[in-house]
């Protein structure tokens, strides 16, 4: 038997086992740790599926910021941990049978996938040279499906507006309720002073390298968000109030610039988000640079949650 296939078999079995364990685990914290581990395994699976861009995203999101978000929520709700009444057996059996049916149906779809598989890879590669990018995934994200990418950033902002709108009236515009370390901790401060410079470098590298190899604005932005949150957790910087002008500016600068480039397309090229010939790469890099910054701030504030204390005047 092929060694690589044996490895994949073990990886797949572990992935499903831990996913099931995540669902079945009794304690919330335990379930979240397992979910985090599943995110890590998924990153390895994406590597095995030759999708390194996706692996980077999954490592950053699934194993990183989502886990932090859920852990924060689980700690807040800790007193409600115990499950009052477990679901009825009939419900469990019915749901189990129906879910097994769904899984079986999807497995059948995988089994009967057409052969040879349809693919857009040759088309994507054929026109990639025009964008000046070397990474086909970045090409798809910023050239062929640029509107999707733009709307994805808008969704992030809309989610942030949604989170903020859950604030109490008197806390609007105030400081997000991110819980930081209770007392100053010298070792943590040391970490929070040393790691962010490295992290910022990695973030910039991610977006810069993203033009020609796996990486990109989103992966870079996530690293920036994590480093910012680390600084906030260590209390090296106060959590900013959401009404501060620089916060608002950083949030929108990326999407606004991207939209501006889009409208520029009307003037110099033929359509919205069309890049003028020869300028595709510089425009995409500028858009990505500002988007990286905006994504970092947006993700950080999404994790920080709705404002809870009013602005001190």
């Amino acid at each position: 038997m092929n060694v690589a296939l044996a490895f994949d078999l073990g990886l797949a079995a572990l992935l499903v086992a831990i996913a099931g364990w995540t669902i079945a685990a009794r304690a919330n914290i335990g379930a979240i740790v397992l979910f985090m581990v599943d995110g890590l395994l998924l990153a390895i699976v994406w590597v095995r599926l030759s999708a390194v861009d996706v692996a980077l995203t999954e490592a950053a999101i699934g194993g990183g910021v989502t886990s932090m978000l859920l852990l924060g929520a689980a700690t807040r709700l800790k007193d409600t941990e115990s499950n009052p009444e477990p679901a009825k057996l009939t419900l469990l059996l019915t749901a189990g049978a129906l879910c097994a049916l769904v899984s079986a149906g999807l497995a059948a779809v995988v089994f009967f996938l057409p052969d040879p598989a349809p693919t857009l890879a040759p088309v994507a590669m054929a026109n990639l040279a025009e964008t000046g990018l070397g990474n086909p995934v970045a090409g798809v994200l910023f050239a062929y499906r640029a509107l999707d990418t733009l709307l994805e950033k808008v969704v992030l902002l809309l989610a942030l507006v949604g989170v903020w709108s859950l604030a109490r009236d008197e806390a609007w515009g105030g400081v997000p309720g991110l819980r930081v370390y209770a007392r100053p901790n010298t070792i943590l401060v040391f970490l929070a002073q040393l790691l962010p410079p490295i992290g910022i470098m990695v973030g910039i590298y991610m977006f810069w390298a993203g033009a020609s190899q796996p990486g990109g604005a989103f992966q870079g932005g996530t690293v920036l968000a994590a480093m910012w949150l680390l600084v906030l957790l260590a209390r090296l910087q106060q959590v900013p109030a959401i009404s501060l002008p620089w916060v608002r500016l950083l949030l929108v600068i990326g999407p606004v610039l991207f939209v501006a480039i889009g409208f520029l397309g009307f003037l110099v090229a033929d359509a919205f988000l069309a890049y003028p010939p020869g300028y595709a790469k510089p425009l995409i890099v500028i858009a990505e640079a500002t988007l990286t910054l905006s994504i970092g701030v947006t993700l950080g504030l999404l994790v920080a949650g709705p404002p809870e204390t009013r602005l001190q005047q």
Partner: protein
Amino acid sequence: MASFLFCAAGFVLIMVALGLVRVLRGPSDVDRILSAQLIGTGGVAVLLLLAVATTTPSVIDVALMLTLLATFVSVAFLRDASRSETEPPRMADRR
């Protein structure tokens, strides 16, 4: 050499997966973060082994990303683990 590296990756994966039993047993949340830390290190090792076994250097970037984010999550988790017993969460509705 590639097959050996695959075997090594599989071995490390199985080992750290066994460590997950600690998540089940606990007893405290600090013990749970221990096994998460172990599997984080193991994941980095597996990714590095795969990067060399399949000669895709960009996979090293994934390992780099994982190292940074795993540290960050551990720090966040320890905030929760050390805080939850000491004080009630700060809430705006305690008025």
